[in-house]
Each structure stands twice: as structure tokens, then as C-alpha cells.
């Protein structure tokens, strides 16, 4: 029974500590690109790369600390569905950028 309770707790809740850590990370990851952009600290390409990296890290923080994707029990259907969705997302976004860049060159 105790074991069951512990499992249930892990599966749904996380702890106050994990939420606070996640919140602090998300604030820091928002402030870093903001400061860089507002003060024009880096070149255009470097800023773009930095913004994207910070956004992806922020996504990971929300998934791990807030949505508890790592605590999922074994057949990890949530994770599988998410990966499937991300593959489609990347195909749509990268494919659109690629084909429309080429289109601009052709015309």
C-alpha cells in the first residue's frame, strides 16, 4: 500500500522542489535571450541560434519539471505520441522554410 501511494505520488505530482526548480530555470532561460536581444550583444546569426537553443531548453524544462514526462510508467505512450508529433512538426516547419527559400531563388 505504501509502495502504491509512493508510485501514485510520483506519477501525478512531482514535488514543490521540482516545480520551484522548473520555475527558476524557465525565468533564467527567458531572461538570457531577452538581455542579449535588447542590448544587441551578439551578431544576428549568433543571436538567432541562442534564442532557439534557449527556447528548446525551456521546452525541455516545462516537459520535465512541470509535465513530468520522465515519470511516465513503461509503455511510454505519451512520450511516443510526443515524438511522433515533433517529427511531423519539424517536417512541416523545416520543409516549408526549405521549399519557400528555394522558391524565392527561382523567381
Amino acid at each position, binding site marked *: 500500500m505504501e509502495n502504491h501511494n509512493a508510485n501514485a*505520488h510520483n506519477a*501525478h*505530482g*512531482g*514535488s*514543490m522542489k521540482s*516545480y520551484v526548480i*522548473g*520555475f527558476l530555470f*524557465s*525565468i533564467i532561460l*527567458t531572461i538570457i*535571450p*531577452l538581455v542579449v*536581444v*535588447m542590448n*544587441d550583444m551578439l551578431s*544576428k546569426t549568433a*543571436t*538567432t541560434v541562442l*534564442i*532557439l537553443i*534557449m*527556447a528548446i531548453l*525551456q*521546452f525541455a524544462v*516545462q*516537459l520535465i519539471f*512541470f*509535465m513530468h514526462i520522465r515519470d511516465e510508467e513503461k509503455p511510454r*505512450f*505519451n512520450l511516443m*505520441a*510526443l515524438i*511522433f*508529433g*515533433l517529427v*511531423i*512538426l519539424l517536417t*512541416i*516547419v523545416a*520543409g*516549408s*522554410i526549405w521549399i*519557400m527559400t528555394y522558391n524565392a531563388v527561382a523567381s
Partner: protein
Amino acid sequence: MAHAVSTPAGAHGGHGAGHGGGHHDDHHDQESLKTFGFWLFLITDVILFGTLFATYVVLRLNTDGGPTGAELLEMNGIIISTFILLTSSFTSGIAVLEMNKGNKRGLILWLAITAVLGASFVFLEVNEFMHLVHEGANIGTSAYWSAFFVLVGTHGLHVSVGLVWMVALILQLSRRGITPVTKRKVSIISLYWHFLDVVWIFVFSIVYLMGVM
């Protein structure tokens, strides 16, 4: 194997013995299946926003000689609404923690705080849109602004729908208290809210930060 050889009476007896627990587990499975169904909805929403982001990125330079994002977007309001939404994602997590403790008052309080933060976000966004239209950038001005209003507006619409849902859930919680069903509803609305925060991070990064740099 043991199942296959047991007599119908034995199987029935075995089932009966675990009835209380078994029934509860069935119920629990139903609720977690519904949570999974909601997760699948979120994945389809990921794809919806993916198409809108793709559209925005492709059309980001097509301003048709009109105003550009860099000229009109005001970062001050956006920075405030970004931190408001980040905080509301955190407070919706606290609500789930309170729920797991069985604290109904705490749960309702933190959900209400989340809803107030969400409402402030929508208020700021509506203000921003009115400002943009006043400055001469509406949804028909150019391909850039069409893509901008559809992407940012779709996110804002999601937040608004979430608000209505959250208020309804607060009312239901105050009447029924914390039951397996209301518990599942709180978990999925908190998932939804974290998801909207993730989408906003990408809107903030790609539309605003990259737009003004």
C-alpha cells in the same frame, strides 16, 4: 496459465475477492485513459501551431511596403505578459500539488490565481492588438501581419478557452470537491496550461525576439 485452468466458479470467486480494489483500478484506468486522450489532442495542437509557425516564418519578410514587426512591436508589454504566463504555468502546478495533498481550498485558490494571471495575459494581448490596428497594422495589411495575427491570435484564443474551462472547473470543484473525476480534470487543465506556456515561449522567441533583433 492459472487463469486458463480455473473453473468459472473459481474465476468468479477470485474476481469477487478483489472486487473493491479491482473496481477502483478500472475506474482509475478509465481516468488515465482520458488523460492520455487529452495528451493526444495536445499533440494535434502541436501540429496546428507547427503549421502556423511555418506560415509565419515563410511570410516574415512579406510586408508589402507596409509597417514591419520591428517597427511596431513593443517589447515592454510583451515582456510583462511573458512573465505573467510563465508564473501562471508555475501556479497551475502548485494547484496540482495542493490537489494531491487533498486540500480543496488550496486547489481552488491556486487555480483562481492561475485564471487571474491568464486573464491579465489576454487583457494585455487585446490591448496590444488594438494598439497595432491603431498604428495601421491589421490582419489584412500584408502577408506578414496576416501570419502574425493568426499565429498570436490562435494562441490567445487557446488561453481564452482555457480560462472559461478553468472557471467552470473551479465551480465544479467547489460543489463536488476532489473526486477521481475532478482530479483528472484538474490534471488535464494543468497539462493544457503548461502546453500553452510552451507555445508562448516559441511565439515570444520567434515572433517577438527575432522580430525586433
